[in-house]
């Protein structure tokens, strides 16, 4: 990955983020107009807003229902259980 692309993906500035979102929305709406969509721009906006709703909603829920692994299953952190399971039952 080139440094410019890497920066765009991993560390975009606020202006870059806004520019990409607005630009993509405009292009998407134009494409939907050409494709004869009933409400151009509706699906792009819905997907974007939906992503935010799902992520923030899930994180909010996670702050309530998620517990550190160590509280539930201390052995999990040691890794022994997963390795044993990955090895399968075999014909023991």
């Amino acid at each position: 990955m080139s440094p410019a692309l890497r920066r765009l993906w991993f560390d975009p500035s606020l202006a870059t983020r806004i520019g990409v979102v607005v630009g993509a929305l405009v292009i998407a709406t134009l494409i939907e107009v050409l494709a004869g969509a009933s409400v151009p721009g509706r699906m792009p906006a819905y997907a974007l807003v939906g992503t935010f709703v799902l992520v923030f909603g899930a994180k909010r829920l996670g702050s309530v229902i998620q517990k550190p692994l160590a509280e539930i299953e201390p052995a999990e952190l040691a890794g022994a259980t997963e390795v044993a399971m990955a090895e399968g039952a075999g014909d023991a």
Partner: protein
Amino acid sequence: MPELHPAIVLLVGALIVAVVPRRITAPVTVLSGLAALAAVLSLDEGATSTYSFYTYELTLLRADRLSLAFATIFAVITVLAALYGWATMGRLERTAGLATAGAGIGVVLAGDLMTLFFFWELKVTTVVLIILAGRRARSDAAGMRYLGVHLVGGVLLLAGVLWRLVETGSLEFGQFELGGATGLILVGFLLSAAAVPLNAWLPDAYPESTVAGTVVLSAFTTKSAVYVLARGFPGLELLIWVGVTMAIFGVVYAIIEDDIRRLLSYHIISQVGFMVAAIGVGTEAAVNGATAHATAHILYKGLLLMGVGAVLYATGRSRASALGGLSRALPWVLVLYMVGAFSISGVPLFSGFPAKELAVSSVGGGGYTVAQWLLKLASVGTFLSVALKLPVVTWFGEPKTRGDEGPARVVRSIPITMYLAMGIAAVANIAIGVRPALLFDLMPTTVTFEAYTAAKVVETAMLLTFTTIGYWLLKARLVPGPKFSLDTDWFYRQLPRRIVAVVDRGGERRIPRPGVPELPTMPAPPTRPVLPSWVLGGTIVGAMVLVLAVSVVA
């Protein structure tokens, strides 16, 4: 000529695998699956097979287009799972896997409620054995919880069947009107479909089996439930909202999940939600949509679980917080996994696109626009967590460490048979995506739906593109930590312990009275089961076979 029942083929295959020399169990398992597939394909539409049970004439086999669609895909995934587990499965898994497949096919071909109940409970028992094949304390515990939950479901189902028998004098399994007896049957079916809030057994149990065992589990339990719902309750409006709730619930949990197999388990709940919602609409197109989605789902979810199973097999890890950086070590697993991920996300030219479009469009076509848009929201969450979050945290970035073990790395190579099974599943997913008629021709009624219109392709492309942009903006929030999500299983896993702890503390707080001797302390309970799990499982299977044999003789 009497029909050869595919379930019998698989159950006989299971018995053979249980006794033949160990070195030939793998080919016998695959051959049993192929024989069952041949038996399914040889069934003519309208074929039936009946038998007498006391004074009842029961239907062991009823082949119509709905049952044949499910039986066909069940046989296909049996072969693929057997191939995938060729080098890793033990005898117990192979036997239980074939028996589970046989029971699943028995369910979808059953023509009456008593035959259905027999295969239903046989499936529960054999699934427990597959979970126990994980051979860990956690697998034992999850298997016993699964058994407990599904025994409750089985009792509800049996109570409903008997109530209905008393009410109507009939054991026929057809479309039901919702009432007291059929209400119990419905709850039994919904529990097996992992409908919220009866869902917790699924993400609890599936990740605790072996890598191949989980592939078997993903195909049969919930999809058998989808079949019986499609057969018994099409058009029941309640199911639309049950399905939509499942679809959203599953993706929300998947977004925050750390364990990649548990993440995909939550997506089973979500995808089954699409099917349940379509069944709730109940039109011909909607039942076709549910069936098409179930068929495609078995293929792509099998492929996804094979992919993450291969990661677990190679690295010994299944938590995203302890993986990463595997793209160079496991590039083909990534490619094959992404075929499954694009399929489940409904990307055009992959199997999920025509199947999901048919299901979701039928919900909208039934006049349930809000439900349709909520299912599209679930599609956003599916693409976000399965096609973006999971592969990024598993295959890209820096390898993460776990405890003293150091960064994630491949510690053993993946058997060629695993790649072969994943390759066949990937080709099937692409073939259906490119040529939807391969799928639609199997459906219960003729499908006139056109998946590849410009409007549908553009709409899907927009949904996927803008979900990707949303992921790009929020990706830092989607990195999972080593956490465990509590689900509704909290009520039967933690609540009893809490109550016991409170009662215990009450005992400790007792103020000693002069002259009254202290009671001796109870010894700590054993941490391991009294009996090895295979003894318990074997006893259950043996008891069921004995009961059946006595019933038949009587």
